[in-house]
């Protein structure tokens, strides 16, 4: 593999709270190549958003502690000074947030908000910055962009605002786009439009994308590689095909099993993974998924390393002690169907 654009090694983020130290991210490592789309998937509280925001230093606060490294084109991001980070933010790595309804300043015209970023990084004169803003708005699919550049955010719908956010993120031609659940707050029909637009823009700009989401359906459309996170750790990482057709970690099986499919008869109850994610202030020892996993055995109290375990798939890594053969048998709840069996409830 060529020199990665962004390389994250053993990233740890913890927050001191009243309930104790919350370990939000626990030893996350991944590489991102130029132009690649990496999807980070997991449920709420798995640390995926914190990981994404930490890359831009947006999780810094007096009660946050960081460890590990994130190197972007030779620049270290985790320990960088605010001034160094400011040069990266928006210009090199740009971010799209989850809720477009609250992510734009309600009292500024949208054009002003985009021009502000262009001028901050490139110091263009007003007229040029404005021209580029209009072009950007046209590119993300805002009709009558020349008029609408002077509108306020409340004059746009949710989907249009997310397009504005995308235009803002692309305004300085960043090499990495971090999208934190960009479609979660939108209607399903709008979700598809926004994803299509992101896919097109990736083709045009060649920017690498880190797509944070809990929705495997979104991922299947757009991602090259997938990292599945659970309770602050990456539990499985591989290409789209490896994750969808040969998943190795029981948590991934559960996620895949929870997708409702329109091409299959409707199940009596929607499949779900039994139990709840652990509290990040008080996590189980060893494998974090152990309490919810029906396949728990004697090895599980030891922390499984993230390692390539499948022959012929050197980039496919996971954290599960089961052997590859055991996994391939156990993940089929019904023949041909991947899923996670119910964990037997031990009587109290």
């Amino acid at each position: 593999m060529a020199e990665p654009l962004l390389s994250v090694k053993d990233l740890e983020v913890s927050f001191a709270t009243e309930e104790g130290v919350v370990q939000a991210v626990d030893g996350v490592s991944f590489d991102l190549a130029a132009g690649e789309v990496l999807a980070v998937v997991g449920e709420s509280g798995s640390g995926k958003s914190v990981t994404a925001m930490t890359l831009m230093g947006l999780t810094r606060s007096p009660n946050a502690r960081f460890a590990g490294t994130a190197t972007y084109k030779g620049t270290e991001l985790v320990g960088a000074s605010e001034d160094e980070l400011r040069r990266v933010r928006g210009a090199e790595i740009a971010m799209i947030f989850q809720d477009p309804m609250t992510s734009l300043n309600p009292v500024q015209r949208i054009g002003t908000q985009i021009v502000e970023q262009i001028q901050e990084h490139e110091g263009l004169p007003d007229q040029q910055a404005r021209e580029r803003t209009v072009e950007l708005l046209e590119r993300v699919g805002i009709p009558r962009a020349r008029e609408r550049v002077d509108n306020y955010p409340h004059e746009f719908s949710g989907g249009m605002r997310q397009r504005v956010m995308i235009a803002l993120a692309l305004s300085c031609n960043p090499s990495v786009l971090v999208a934190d659940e960009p479609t979660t707050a939108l209607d399903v029909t709008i979700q598809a439009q926004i994803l299509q637009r992101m896919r097109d823009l990736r083709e045009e700009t060649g920017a690498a994308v880190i797509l944070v989401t809990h929705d495997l359906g979104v991922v299947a459309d757009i991602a090259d590689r997938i990292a599945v996170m659970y309770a602050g750790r990456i539990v499985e990482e591989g290409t789209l095909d490896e994750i969808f057709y040969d998943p190795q970690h029981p948590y991934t099986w559960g996620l895949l099993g929870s997708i409702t499919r329109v091409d299959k008869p409707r199940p009596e109850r929607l499949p779900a993974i039994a139990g709840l994610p652990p509290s990040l202030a008080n996590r189980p020892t060893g494998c974090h998924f152990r309490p919810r996993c029906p396949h728990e055995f004697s090895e599980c109290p030891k922390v499984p390393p993230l390692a390539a375990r499948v022959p012929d798939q050197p980039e496919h890594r996971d954290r599960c002690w089961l052997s590859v053969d055991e996994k391939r048998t156990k993940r089929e709840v019904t023949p041909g169907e991947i899923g996670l069996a119910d964990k037997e409830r031990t009587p109290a």
Partner: protein
Amino acid sequence: MGRFIVRRLLQMILVLFAVSVITFLIFNVIPNSDPAVRMSGRHTSESTIQAIRKEWGFNDPLYQQYLTTMKKVVTGDLKSQFTQLPVGKEIVKGLPRTFSLAIGAALLWMFVAICFGLYSAVKAGRFADRFLTIIALVGISMPVFWIGALMNYYLGFKLGWFPNGGYVELTEDPIDWFYHLILPWTALAILFIGFYSRVLRSNVLDTINEDYVRTARAKGLGERQILIRHVLRNSMIPIVTLWGLDFGAVLGGGAILTETVFDLQGVGQYTAEAIGQLDVPPVLAVTMFSAFFIVLLNAVVDILYAYLDPRIRLS
């Protein structure tokens, strides 16, 4: 935006009409005794009372009385029952003094409160914040007649750094005008600074956690730009309301204590004297006069609001 302003000014006229009716009722009708007797003062004669009754038309039906009173107020025909001086002229004489006090103090307290409030919020929980909190509480707790008297006594009389009260016309000597107003401005502003900086601090702390402030940070802006362009403007909206009301009240002669302590001879002090002498016509006039400024400033605030928050213009 133009239509918004016109609509707001029309509303203002309606409110003023309502205020005038209520003021009229409070002074002339509700006390339930002969208004002519009340107006004629403590030492009076039957003939004076008769004359007042005739002049104000107290035997006429109520609406007629209202019209007579309003005519007197509007034309400046009101006379003090005590000094026989025309009320309108006295108010006009006091206006530059009251305006000098009000405008200077309002700018001072707004500016200092913004600085204190922002700084406090940025340093929230640390020593500087706690220190400013205590200062603010002290400021809020000190009555203006007390702090004003102390300033006058120590800084004016004992040390002689400042003049001991009084007022110099701006047109006469701008430097002396400024010099004479430093203490009154400070005394009047202290209370408001304490209060406003506390409100602004909590607004800023709320706004700092908004998603769009995170967006601003993700754009690579510096802390100062984020604070001023994105946080401050959104935090100012509640403060502007307060400011309009308080500024209007002070403009309309509401700084009775400050004006009296520093002997500024403005509208407020005129009111204080009229109240002391149970002199009804000046009090009536000043009440309407203050109401006018409060209503006016309220309209100005609404227009400012629409400027600060574009979402208001539509609704």
